[in-house]
């Protein structure tokens, strides 16, 4: 008989414990992940830090299964865990905060670009200054239930008074909060775009693809025959195909101002540097309106996008193809501009012309009096 390596005993104990406490294992997760959840799925499991703070170690298995990180498994982020010594050899931290700050390095391993952007953000600055409130990665994104939440859902988690503060100075503040990503103004250096998302009035939610039933990109590609982004006619065609004749509650695209790259959303500025000038967006040809996409929510909540041409926003057909999207300046219609000029010329031209003819007839009138 040969002696086993010392960690084999620890691993066996862990596995036995996992099997003993485990609830029903998730078929979507690996055996290894289910083994971790065998213990970490239990209520009451917690770690106590140096200052006496405790961190719950329970992981909601269902939430993790639904997270964007589920396919990576536990070990991807917790590679420092040595099965042979776990849990006894866990690193020691003074506080939960210190643990969260240290764990951000794990996120950086995959999200290096976002991390670099974050380094220049007001959140990172506050953190360097020693603020205990400045969020770490998990402060905004959560730890084990990372899902593609909207920026608004993420931000108001802490900035709950944001709407009231904006209502002090921003016209239609509630609407702005609904259709403009927080980062579109609070990451002023980032590039923005118009994301025309398909909305389903029947469910009052964003239209979404079901897993295993892709249709949107296929349909958009078939309509966008030359592949240069949807033009006004192609968008109209797409809308008609999405809503066959007689649709009781036709789906419609609703516009949102988003960042072109979510990575740039991490470079959030101090609010003093945030965009407050309305005409950054509300002018013809404004930067956010030069980049347009149409989208639906994918099965995991992340948008599935197809490019569209800028001209669709102001096209006359937008009354039919984009009835639920309009932004002052950004979606200005050239046809209405022409009508306005005609009205100005006609409004000024009629009196001038009429006066001129009266002047020409002045002698004739005088001769009759």
């Amino acid at each position, binding site marked *: 008989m040969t002696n086993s390596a010392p960690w084999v005993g620890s691993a066996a104990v862990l596995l036995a414990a996992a099997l003993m406490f485990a609830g029903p294992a998730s078929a979507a997760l690996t055996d290894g992940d289910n083994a971790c959840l065998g213990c970490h799925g239990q209520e009451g499991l917690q770690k106590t830090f140096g200052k006496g703070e405790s961190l719950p170690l329970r992981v909601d298995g269902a939430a993790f299964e639904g997270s964007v990180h589920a396919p990576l498994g536990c070990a991807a982020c917790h590679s420092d865990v040595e099965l042979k010594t776990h849990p006894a050899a866990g690193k020691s931290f003074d506080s939960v905060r210190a643990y969260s700050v240290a764990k951000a390095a794990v996120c950086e391993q995959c999200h290096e670009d976002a991390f670099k952007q974050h380094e220049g953000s007001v959140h990172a600055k506050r953190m360097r200054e020693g603020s205990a409130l400045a969020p770490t990665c998990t402060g905004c994104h959560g730890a084990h239930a990372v899902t593609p939440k909207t920026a608004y859902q993420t931000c108001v988690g802490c900035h709950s008074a944001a709407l009231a503060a904006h209502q002090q100075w921003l*016209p*239609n503040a*509630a*609407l702005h909060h*609904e259709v403009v990503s927080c980062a579109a103004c609070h990451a002023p250096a980032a590039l923005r775009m118009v994301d025309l998302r398909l909305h389903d*009035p029947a469910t009052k939610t964003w239209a979404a693809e079901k897993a295993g039933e892709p249709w949107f990109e296929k349909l958009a590609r078939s309509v966008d025959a030359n592949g240069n982004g949807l033009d006004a006619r192609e968008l109209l065609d797409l809308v008609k195909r999405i809503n066959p004749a007689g649709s009781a509650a036709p789906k*419609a695209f609703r516009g949102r101002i988003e960042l072109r790259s979510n990575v740039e959303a991490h470079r959030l500025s101090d609010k003093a540097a945030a965009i407050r*000038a*309305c*005409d950054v967006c*509300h*002018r*013809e*040809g404004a930067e956010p309106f030069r980049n347009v996409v149409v989208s639906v929510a994918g099965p995991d909540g992340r948008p599935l996008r197809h490019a569209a041409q800028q001209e669709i926003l102001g096209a006359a057909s*937008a*009354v039919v193809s*984009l*009835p*639920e*999207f*309009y932004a*002052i*300046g950004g*979606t*200005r*219609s050239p046809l*209405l501009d022409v*009508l*306005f000029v005609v*009205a*100005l010329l*006609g*409004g*000024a031209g*009629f*009196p001038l012309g*009429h*006066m001129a*003819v*009266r002047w*020409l*007839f002045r002698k*004739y*009138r005088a001769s*009759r*009096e």
Partner: protein
Amino acid sequence: MTDMQRIYVHPLPVRIWHWANALGFIALILTGVQIRYVDLIGLMSFRAAVSLHNWVGWVLVGNFFIWLGFYLFTDKIRVYHPELSPVKHFRDSFRQLQYYGYGIFKGDPNPHHLSAYHKFNALQSMAYQIIMLLLVPLQFVTGVLLWDLKRFSGAVEFFGGVRVVDTVHVLLFIFFTAFILVHPYLASLGHTPSAHFKAMITGYEEVDE
């Protein structure tokens, strides 16, 4: 020159409504142009234009009800009574068009004879009923919806979406811009260029004996 008789045609509430409406419409057009063409015009900041546009809009909504209330609760509403004979209405309208397009140049008399209860010619009568009972209320309704799209999202949806509401608002803005340019000119075609302007201040029009 023939003797002129003074008749009281424009009661005080109508004059107050008229001039408030005129100033308000000019303010709404200027701020509307500033809002819509911020990249071309710099009369004021976008935010100031939006704020002023909203305030003036509400004042004019209130002002509209002064006009409506005055005519609903006085016998002066007779000035808006439609001509029930289509033949007569179109004959009078044609005569009026003929006058503005031809007779006025030759020095023909205005075919419309003004009186206290008959202050509009056939063209004005039809135009002002359409403007005051359809176009102005429609402009106010679309303006109020655009003022707070979230609050009125149900109504916006009912009208076919924000793009439809905005397009109607802008089309009417274009119409009123042309109107505000043509209206003073037509008002200058009285027996003297300033006669109708003075009348809209004093209330008294001067008509031939």
